[in-house]
């Protein structure tokens, strides 16, 4: 409640002292210097017509929802990978912000373990002897080179799986890049020998300007 109330009372017969005036004026001056809020404005005082497009928020997104955009990631590599086996990116976002902003970034996607090495392919059948190697895939979200969040390990038994990760990070004005990275490993840190096919996915960045 941003209403303000006078703090000094005076009446006829009182000697005039500027401090009485100042005390009351200061009470309101404080409020005008940044504390006005919804209680001070009549309903619908501001509408979208008063506000320039993208004054407060901007959205950037990268969506991949066709088969041609699927990316196969090499399961023989154990380090973080930022592009596919064919050298294609995962759909990074690059943009320039003209002010400081809070970036709310989120990524969701689905993937499939590609049966590239039959010895280590898992089958949910009791007594199947070949699923001895435990492996997993992990994703992380990168903003300007910083890791801001990760998806928990997705294990080999989940042949088809999906993940979601989001984070909020303050950004200065300037150029920025948002991307994901993928790492496939076996439990002991070695290769998984199984590729991942990264399928439908979407990367969104919501820039909340200050």
């Amino acid at each position, binding site marked *: 409640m941003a209403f303000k109330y006078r703090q000094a009372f005076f009446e006829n017969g*009182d000697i005039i002292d500027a401090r009485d005036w100042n005390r009351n004026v200061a009470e309101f001056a404080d409020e005008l210097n940044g504390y006005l809020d919804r209680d001070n404005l009549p309903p619908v005082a501001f509408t979208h017509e008063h506000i320039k497009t993208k004054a407060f928020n901007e959205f950037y997104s990268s969506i991949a929802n066709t088969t041609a955009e699927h990316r196969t990631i090499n399961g023989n590599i154990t380090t973080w990978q930022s592009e596919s086996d064919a050298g294609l990116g995962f759909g990074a976002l690059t943009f320039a912000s003209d002010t400081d902003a809070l970036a709310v970034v989120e990524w969701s996607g689905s993937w499939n373990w590609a049966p590239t090495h039959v010895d280590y392919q898992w089958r949910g059948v009791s007594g199947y002897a070949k699923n001895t190697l435990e492996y997993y895939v992990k994703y992380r979200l990168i903003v300007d080179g910083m890791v801001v969040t990760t998806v928990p390990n997705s294990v080999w038994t989940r042949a088809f799986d999906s993940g979601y990760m989001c984070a909020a990070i303050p950004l200065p004005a300037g150029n920025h890049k948002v991307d994901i990275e993928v790492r496939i490993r076996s439990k002991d840190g070695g290769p998984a020998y199984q590729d991942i096919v990264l399928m439908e996915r979407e990367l969104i960045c919501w820039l909340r300007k200050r």
Partner: protein
Amino acid sequence: MSTIPVSRLKVHPLRGMDQRWRAAPNSAQEIQDMTWVEQDGWTDGPGYRTLVKSYYSVGSGQELGTENLTNAFDDESKIISLHWFSQHTGAVQWMIWETSDGELKAFNGSKAPEGVYNYLRDRDGAQFNGTDRTRTYNSTPTVRTQSFTYGGRIYLLNGKDEPVVFDGRKADPCGFGTQAGQASPDVLDKTEGSDAITVSDDRIGVGYKEADNTQGYRYKVTFVNERGQESEASFRSESITFTNTDSSNKVPAVRIPIGPSNCVARRIYRTLNMYISGELVTGYGSDTRTSADEYYFHSEIQDNVSQVITDIIPDALLGTVLDETQLGSWPFNATLGAVFKNTVFLAGMMTNEVRFSKPMHPEVFPSGNLFQIGDSVQGPITAMYPTKNALVVFKQLGIYLIKGDPSNGFYAQTLTLDAGCSAPDSIKELPGLGLAFLSESGLFLLEGALTNTGNPTSVVKLSSYLPDLFDRINKSALVNASAAVDRKSGEYILALPTRSSPDPSMVLKYHYNIGEWSTSENWPINCMIATGDHRGYVIFGSHDDTTLPGLFVISKGWPDKGGVYNVEPSYTSTHIDFGHVYSSVHPLRFLVYAIGYGNNDIKCNFKVNRQLDSIYAIDKSHDQRYSLDNLPMYGETKFGEFINGEEARFSEHRPVVVRFDVSASHKGPVHELQVTYSAEKRRIALLSYEVDLKSGTQTAPSPMTLNYGGTGSKR
């Protein structure tokens, strides 16, 4: 300078009320409508005015064209509870109140001066307007609706109505009152008969691909609200049994119950296969996860519409085991709530229990999370307040501390059984002092660090010297008392019911910077808050729905009390004792050190020897300025013009000495003297005063100030 030898008693600095029979001269028997200021004096105190100004509305019908002075709160019924909280790091503030008409409203200043509130709405859009949705009002003294905040939301509970949590948009029920309904599994058939649906994919399916061996499962369900709070789990479902083949699994269908309207998702839990090689598992086997009565997370149905799910998740893909000891319903009838270390504590049920939530889950109350606080001898639990490193639990006669933290566990310990709290709304933290609370025998302070380090923890009585005032209190309605801390004035404001009514009308003010008391009358305070923002206003809700309905804000800027009562500041000293009963004095004059406010008079009268009547039938009075001063005043001065040959300008308030020549010779020898100063209109500021007297022989006057303690602090 006096022409005859006199004794002079200097009374400085002026301190607060002390109603002992023999109190120090610089204390007062009564201070009305005054405030202590840091320049060390007592000035006129605040008044109050409705939160929004009155406005003129045009009449209707035959009175069309007339203008009526109207206020948004003219038709407001009694305000029975008042709450304040903010969201978005203080950018959005909410003031919420309940009325005796069963309404629940939030202040909306954008429509001022008319219609300055919105009714809160529930999830279905029904308004808490006393008709669509209503709140219970008890006219008899009872604990008012209490509130606490968690995660940017405010929780409101009164033990009678459904507890609600307001998130800025809607008032939702808190947690779940009961466990979820029971699931009902079955094997999915294409027909009504034996043509079951099966799945042959190696990676999915329920049970083992074993021909003729029995497979079996049970399910449990929980409800989840939009804040992620989970209900108690349902009773286990009937078991479902079926057989698979060597190449395919059957697909069970599970009928799941629909939750209440605040349910946004349902969680399904399932056992592992209860059969191994066709034999029923009765305990733990070689697979240490296997148990016939353990339930693992299966899936979350993120709606409250679906009634059947098909189950194709193999045992290996189930999630973590369901720990039912960490689930529980919101305690029925809880009237008190507090948040301590990310945990919500509830009390005020019909028992001596304090229940506490699962940490970080403010609406989930596992049945084992409870403390038994004291026994029935100490009365009910009356209040809870989180402060420093403990949650303080008050009973009618007893104070307990709950300490610890969620990771290492909480524990309770008894602090004292000598004092307790009678009014939960009286508890407030006094800056630099401790926790003030009202009990039947007065106002107490819980001071110290509440731990084994730092200042020792102790309970001290703050109102020791106010026996007459506390005699006036209506003890049976003490629960109606409420308090707020006015940080601008350095006052703890305590509204108390007197014997004439259960509704509070008297205010006691504790000036915590000097540890002194004053009082005031005609404050219809039913509930009170101090806004938690930089403004720090004290706002109260009125119980007087006839003369002073609505919400009022306290300020020294107002001329009066709601336009109905005057602010009438007065300072009445103690009975200043001049020594032995056989010695006497003759008062000659009072010299009052006051702030020179102008032509509005300061008044003076006095009593001697504790007689009932004052010396003068009409108070003596004098301008609050030097007689020869000719300073610009309101009502007379126009800037740009001249006063006595000088251009009009601002002046300054400054200390002046106002002299009252008096005589009490017609009352005989004077042993004791009590003086009262008051303001003719509104403004007054007393710094100190002196009493000139004839005492002893004229050639050897007695040094009164030294002999009778007129200077120096009382305590």
